[in-house]
């Protein structure tokens, strides 16, 4: 390209009066020397702009269109930028416009610098700002959709996915050609309308501009929904100018200008204020009527101007462009009018006029208490900006607040307010409550899930969808099961904590069928319950609940423990000082429950009179025996039969339920489980057992094997049977006597492990094996797990399965959690049982080289870690090699061990201290030694004397001495 051609292009572009024309003459990017040309153009434009400004300053005119110049320059600069660079443009925080919406409240604002003044916007904007700042660019964290502009540039509509910004689940952001980014929250139809009204209210005679802006916003919203951006694209380009103008004139960060404008509006009668758009038709009619009346025209001008201002305040959707002081003064003025009205000083026409804009006079007339309430309302209004809808909200809020001040909670039934509060809670879950309202309610420590459930939320959602407030795709949150459970109405005296613990224990009971063993994590809590029971500190509900789990109140409780606790409780003030000594025999809980059971049996005998019609069994004999047992048991028993017949099964899962003819629900599963447990604990009456035996039920089904083996009944009845059964095959099997099937190298290996396992079961009395278990030098822990997998994969022979079955193998493959539980359970047991198997620290292991030890900074006193416990205990020879199978003993020895450990650590600390001193001493000596060496060698050099001779001489001297 020749120099002439370049100059020609440059000139054409600079001369072009309209930006659109530049596009026509601009060469495309592929042109050679493109960059040179563009740079030249920009330089020329810049210099021309500078000379223009200079001329303007000199001649004091404004003939030159600097704006156009700027646009040209920017336009050319944009051409120079690679497109992808533009996409990653950094976000100018000051060029972000926020629009927040929630049901019925839509706000748009632009200023980020002055957050504090913007009330609830501030929270939102600060959050968003942080979000954007933290994430750098919108495009990186936000899933984006492109918006192709007419000039080929891609613009993004961002969907901000991160809902942590606020309760609003979604935000949309759009960057428009003016460089502003518009971010708006999930808009509902109602919000859209309000947005329009709001924007129109901003117009102040510039309807066309704002309407255009409104249109664009609507288009964005529409495009957002339909994903069709063509209409929007076309419009955006055109609207740019309008938008700029709107932002210059209509924005909210020019309070002074605004104030004067507002006053202008009020005083100028001709100005069409917002009525036509905002005021609903009926009220508009009233307005027209009143304001047209002759009497109205006679009212002093001052009052009318105040009235008009009040009208704006009362009807405006968004008063953020009114100074706060103005709003406050309006409400003060309205309040004065009300007082006047009360005293009869206000003319009827004025009252009517004020009533027409929504000032409630009936309240003032009726009682004084209401006045007080109004005043508190005003207090709030003074603090915050608010709109018409918010007033009603605040009325209720204030009522709730007063309740809160009195009772310190709002999460109960509050007269007149419960419904409203529940509505708020539902709205909260529907993401329709503004951050502002949320914060307000949270000040009153609202529990968002109290008193409502998912059904309520669903109802509310459906209602709102019907009312077109939200669409069916509106995102909302459901209440989690956990939270629901938390809000169950607990009986008096039951804390949530207690109930939580109880639930966990119940879960354990449902799984294992017995809580009178060590329940992992709840040993202490259960012990507390037992002790409290003996002190009579548990209430009836707690006792019944725990007795449902067949708690043994005396398990793990001793008189000595009770005495210790008694002193502790008296110290803590839980028990009175003169509380008598309690023993297991004189247990207060026992007395209470005995009394209770007495009354219960009375009740039963009374109810026995009632004849029960038996619809499931017709057996006369059974009926008779049924009558001897209490009604409740009978009902459940019949339900069990009903369930078994209905489902034609003898397997009763834990969650089995049966609905009787009387439409009564029976938890057959859990009842049956309780019967099973009672059976094994030898607590079930003989006639009941007989009755259940008739149903050919499996007493062992679903129960923990450990529990059965350790149960009273099992120990009394089973051993003979089981032993005999077990011995048939297993005892024949030895390492020398291997059946043919297993007489292979791998088979022999298997037998070796099997025998080790058998021996383990026999010595330990449990079939459970920890994952690290070693017995007779064999790693049976992992071997057992292998067997389980092999069986699942059909790799075990029938004989092998039979042999393992005879030992009582638990075939269930354990997941990590289950295995861990077993491991923890067996930890003490195995360590205690087979001390030979565990790796004892070798006596006097090779000591580290002394020189390797360096002085380390003195450590904080550290208690030995749990894993160290065993080791140290072994070192001290503390662990007895004898098996202590009762848990009581084990607990006792554990606590002793702990004391011992403390002593050992103390001792260790002292030793380490000594060691450090010696080490320091050694270091000193070494230094001294080195210093002497240096001196000696220096002198030796000077003298040329052989040191060895000297040394030898010296040594000899010493020896001689």
């Amino acid at each position, binding site marked *: 390209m020749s120099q002439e051609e370049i100059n020609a292009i440059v000139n054409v572009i600079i001369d072009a009066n309209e930006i659109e024309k530049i596009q026509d003459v601009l060469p495309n990017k592929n042109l050679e020397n493109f960059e040179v040309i563009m740079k030249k153009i920009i330089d020329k434009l810049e210099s021309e702009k500078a000379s223009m400004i200079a001329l303007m300053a000199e001649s004091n005119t404004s003939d030159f269109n600097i704006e156009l110049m700027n646009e040209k320059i920017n336009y050319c600069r944009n051409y120079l930028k690679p497109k992808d660079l533009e996409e990653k443009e950094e976000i100018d925080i000051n060029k972000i416009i926020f629009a927040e919406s929630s049901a019925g409240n839509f706000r748009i604002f632009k200023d980020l610098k002055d957050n504090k003044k913007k009330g609830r916007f501030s929270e939102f904007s600060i959050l968003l700002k942080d979000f954007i700042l933290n994430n750098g660019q919108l495009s990186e964290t936000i899933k984006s959709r492109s918006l192709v502009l007419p000039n080929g540039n891609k613009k993004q509509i961002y969907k901000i996915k991160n809902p942590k910004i606020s309760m609003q689940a979604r935000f949309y952001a759009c960057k428009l050609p003016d460089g502003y980014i518009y971010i708006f929250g999930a808009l509902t139809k109602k919000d859209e309308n309000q947005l329009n009204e709001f924007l129109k209210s901003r117009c102040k005679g510039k309807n066309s501009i704002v309407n255009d802006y409104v249109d664009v916003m609507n288009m964005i919203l529409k495009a957002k929904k339909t994903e069709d951006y063509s209409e929007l694209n076309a419009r955006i380009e055109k609207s740019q100018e309008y938008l700029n103008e709107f932002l210059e004139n209509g924005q909210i960060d020019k309070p002074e200008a605004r104030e004067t404008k507002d006053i202008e509006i009020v005083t100028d009668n001709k100005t069409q204020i917002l009525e036509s758009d905002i005021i609903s038709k009926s009220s508009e009619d009233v307005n027209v009527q009143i304001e047209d009346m002759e009497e109205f025209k006679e009212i002093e001008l001052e009052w009318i101007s105040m009235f008009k201002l009040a009208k704006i305040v009362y009807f405006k959707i968004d008063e953020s462009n009114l100074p706060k002081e103005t709003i406050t003064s309006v409400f003060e003025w309205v309040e004065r009018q009300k007082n006047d009205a009360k005293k009869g000083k206000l003319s009827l026409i004025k009252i009517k006029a004020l009533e027409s804009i929504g000032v409630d006079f009936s309240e003032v007339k009726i009682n004084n208490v209401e006045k007080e309430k109004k005043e508190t309302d005003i207090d709030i209004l003074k603090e915050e900006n608010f709109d018409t809808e918010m007033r009603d909200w605040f009325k209720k809020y204030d009522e709730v607040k007063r309740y809160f001040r009195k009772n310190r909670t709002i999460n109960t039934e509050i007269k007149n307010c419960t419904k409203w509060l529940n509505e708020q809670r539902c709205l909260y879950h529907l993401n329709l409550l503004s951050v502002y309202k949320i914060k307000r309610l949270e000040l009153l420590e609202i529990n968002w899930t109290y008193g409502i459930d998912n059904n309520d939320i669903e109802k509310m959602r459906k209602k709102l969808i019907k009312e077109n407030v939200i669409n069916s795709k509106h995102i909302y949150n459901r209440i989690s099961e956990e939270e629901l459970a938390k809000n169950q109405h607990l009986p008096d005296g039951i804390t949530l904590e207690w109930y939580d613990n109880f639930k966990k224990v119940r879960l354990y009971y449902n799984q294992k069928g017995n809580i009178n063993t060590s329940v992992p994590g709840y040993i202490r809590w259960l012990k507390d319950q037992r002790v409290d029971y003996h002190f009579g500190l548990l209430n009836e509900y707690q006792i019944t609940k725990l007795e449902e789990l067949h708690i043994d109140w005396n398990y793990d409780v001793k008189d000595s423990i009770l005495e210790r606790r008694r002193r502790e409780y008296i110290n803590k003030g839980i028990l009175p000082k003169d509380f008598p000594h309690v023993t297991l025999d004189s247990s207060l809980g026992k007395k209470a429950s005995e009394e209770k059971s007495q009354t219960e049996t009375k009740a039963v005998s009374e109810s026995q009179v009632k004849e029960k019609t038996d619809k499931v069994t017709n057996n006369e004999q059974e009926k008779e025996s049924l009558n001897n047992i209490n009604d409740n048991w009978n009902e459940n028993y019949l339900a069990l039969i009903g369930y078994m017949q209905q489902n034609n099964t003898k397997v009763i899962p834990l969650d089995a339920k049966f609905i009787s003819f009387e439409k009564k629900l029976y938890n057959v599963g859990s009842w049956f489980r309780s019967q099973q447990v009672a059976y094994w604990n030898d607590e079930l009456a003989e006639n009941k057992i007989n009755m259940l035996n008739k149903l050919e039920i499996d007493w062992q089904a679903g129960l923990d094997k450990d529990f059965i083996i350790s149960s009273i009944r099992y120990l009394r009845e089973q051993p003979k049977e089981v032993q005999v059964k077990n011995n048939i095959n297993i005892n024949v099997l030895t390492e020398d006597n291997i059946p043919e099937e297993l007489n292979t190298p791998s088979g022999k290996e298997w037998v070796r492990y099997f025998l080790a396992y058998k021996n383990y079961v026999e010595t330990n009395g449990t079939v459970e094996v920890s994952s690290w278990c070693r017995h007779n030098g064999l790693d049976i822990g992992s071997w057992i797990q292998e067997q389980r997998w092999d069986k699942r994969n059909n790799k075990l022979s029938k004989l092998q399965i039979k042999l393992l079955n005879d030992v009582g193998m638990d075939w269930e493959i354990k997941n990590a959690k289950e295995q861990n539980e077993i491991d923890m359970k067996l930890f003490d047991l195995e360590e205690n049982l087979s001390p030979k198997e565990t790796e004892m*620290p*070798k006596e*006097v*292991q*090779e*000591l*580290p*080289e*002394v020189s*390797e*030890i360096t002085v*380390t900074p003195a*450590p904080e006193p*550290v208690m030995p870690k749990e894993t160290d416990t065993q*080791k*140290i205990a072994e*070192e*001290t020879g503390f662990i007895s090699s004898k098996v202590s199978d009762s848990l009581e003993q084990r607990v006792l020895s554990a606590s002793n061990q702990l004391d011992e450990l403390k002593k*050992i650590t103390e*001792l*260790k600390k002292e*030793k*380490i201290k*000594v*060691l*450090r001193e*010696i*080490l320091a*001493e*050694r270091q000193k*000596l*070494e230094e*001294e*030694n080195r210093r*002497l*060496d240096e*001196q*000696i060698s220096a*002198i*030796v050099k*000077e*003298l040329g*004397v052989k*040191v060895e001779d*000297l*040394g030898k001489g*010296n*040594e000899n001297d010493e020896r001689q001495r």
Partner: protein
Amino acid sequence: MMRDKDKKLEDYSLEELDKLIEKLKEEVNNLQKEVILKNKQLAELLKLYKTSN
């Protein structure tokens, strides 16, 4: 048992610590003897130095 470099003094058992202390004490004793010896050497050398000059 070779000394693990990361092993802290706190990780040693009581017996190990006792052994360590004993060993260190012995070493300190030796060092003290050495220092005494060298001091003597130095004194003699200084004597020699003085006489030679």
